[in-house]
């Protein structure tokens, strides 16, 4: 394969991964709202619709995007313009750039063609993420200072000193992982954990996991650590004076950080793309069986979901009295048909034995799916915590960061060191 093709593939991967992460954001916003509705027993997104199609409220994210794009960008008389404009860019830049070293799956090898679903396989791996995410302090600091409001400046100072405090805890927590895996590369860290759940770092280094996960809440400025924008005290914190897409950039960056954070937690502590008890070798050997099982599960799921939706339609006929009534049918009937088609198709495809390349591709896609599923689970944990816990007070936050997390982090290093000696013996 020549160099030109390599470069084209690299470019394709960059665009694909960035688009993937940015497109997860509307989905996460929807998840957040649905989560809030279910957890706090309130109305979630249910109004917006296009010709009666509501998709359970995802259309609201589209409406948000349209609204943010068409609003005017405001500024104040005290705004320092160059920095005011650059700050949201920094925020988004950091969020996009940190995905570079994240491996989504094992490399796909077909013949002599190797495809790795990762932008750059750096030897400094995880350190790259830590270093670049430490730059996101600038976005907050500059946004707050340049917009020229008191709330903004106070929010910025609070936010940045919170972020730097918890960055330390994060740095100490990952030292334990380096000790156990002996590498900065995320590929090595995942490979070292393997497919057996009690070899995953979450089991071997539980303290490290708790520290890192807690610090991640503070780094992404989410409840219970959302003091930089604590509404009750600072109206909106560092982005009080922002509007339209400039605010949208901060908003998107927050969710992109959430995705990256969840990816990192998955990779470091939960075996990344590994399916519990099924190593890649096992999967390759039994690819045809895997396909059959997936086929059956998919068919049953489609049938059940389709039946549920159709039943829902029959029961609640005439509830809205307009096009929205038929939404369940629009999705229910095709799903039922797909389920039936899969069931019929099983008898045709069932006995097929997959060729080598197809089995490789299947395992690749399966592992990608597992990786994303684990990530979405951790995103859900972020959302879950946000709507469950109340906000800390600022002095409590600093006390937790400095007097609890850092001593624990130091102790954790020694525990991990002794464990490494024990494991290595």
């Amino acid at each position, binding site marked *: 394969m020549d160099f030109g093709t390599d470069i084209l593939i690299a470019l394709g991967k960059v665009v694909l991964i960035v688009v993937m992460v940015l497109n997860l954001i509307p989905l996460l916003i929807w998840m957040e709202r649905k989560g809030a509705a279910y957890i706090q027993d309130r109305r979630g997104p249910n109004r917006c619709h296009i010709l009666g199609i509501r998709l359970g409220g995802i259309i609201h994210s589209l409406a948000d995007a349209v609204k943010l794009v068409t609003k005017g960008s405001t500024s104040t008389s005290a705004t320092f313009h160059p920095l005011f404009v650059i700050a949201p860019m920094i925020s988004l830049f950091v969020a996009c750039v940190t995905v570079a070293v994240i491996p989504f799956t094992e490399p796909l090898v077909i013949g002599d063609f190797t495809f790795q679903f990762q932008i750059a396989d750096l030897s400094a791996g995880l350190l790259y993420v830590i270093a670049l995410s430490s730059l996101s302090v600038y976005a907050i600091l500059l946004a707050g200072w340049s917009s020229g409001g008191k709330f903004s400046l106070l929010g910025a100072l609070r936010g940045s000193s919170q972020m730097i*405090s918890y960055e330390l805890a994060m*740095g100490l927590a990952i030292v334990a992982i380096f000790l156990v895996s002996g590498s900065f590369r995320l590929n090595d860290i995942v490979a070292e954990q393997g497919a057996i759940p009690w070899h995953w770092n979450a089991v071997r280094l539980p303290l490290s996991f708790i520290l890192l996960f807690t610090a991640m809440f503070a780094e992404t400025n989410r409840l219970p650590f959302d003091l930089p924008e604590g509404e009750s005290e600072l109206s909106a914190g560092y982005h009080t004076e922002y509007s339209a897409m400039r605010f949208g950039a901060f908003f998107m960056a927050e969710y992109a950080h959430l995705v990256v954070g969840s990816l990192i937690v998955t990779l470091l502590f939960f075996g990344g793309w590994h399916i519990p008890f099924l190593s890649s070798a096992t999967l390759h050997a039994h690819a045809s069986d895997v396909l059959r099982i997936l086929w059956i599960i998919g068919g049953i799921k489609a049938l059940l979901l389709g039946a549920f939706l159709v039943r829902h339609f029959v029961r609640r006929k005439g509830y809205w009295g307009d096009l929205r009534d038929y939404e369940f049918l629009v999705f229910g009937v095709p799903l039922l048909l797909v389920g039936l088609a899969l069931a019929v198709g099983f008898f045709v495809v069932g006995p097929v034995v997959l060729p080598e390349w197809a089995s490789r591709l299947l395992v690749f896609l399966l592992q990608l799916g597992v990786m994303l599923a684990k990530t979405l689970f951790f995103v859900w944990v972020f959302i879950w915590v946000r709507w469950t816990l109340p906000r800390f007070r600022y002095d409590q936050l600093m006390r937790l960061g400095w007097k609890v997390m850092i001593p624990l982090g130091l102790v954790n290093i020694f525990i991990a060191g002794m464990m490494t*000696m024990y494991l290595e013996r």
Partner: protein
Amino acid sequence: MNLNGISLLFLFALAVIVGLVMVVGTSFLGKWRGNKARFIPYECGLDPVGSPRSRMPLKFFLVAVIFIIFDIEVVFLYPWAVVFRDFVADGKGVLMLVEMAVFLGILALGFGYLWVRGALEWEE
């Protein structure tokens, strides 16, 4: 030049472009109706009092200084952590652990000093 570097350059460029499109594009897409009140910094509907960039407490400074010191400490830990397994394989694990214990012990002294002096306390 390896492929990693090229991919990273692509990514950096793309990230800048995405940011630029969003931040600059909003000036062209959004409708902006001028109004004097829009230029006033938001202070819950009241007229702003005093300078927007007034002096801030020194606590933030102290946090930042202590952060730098510990950040450098953590940076010293990284190379140690990565080679630790190799040292254990060579049978020098205890020595390395002691070496790091001395390093961290001296810093723990400093940490204790900060604690006793109340530098980690947020309230005065």
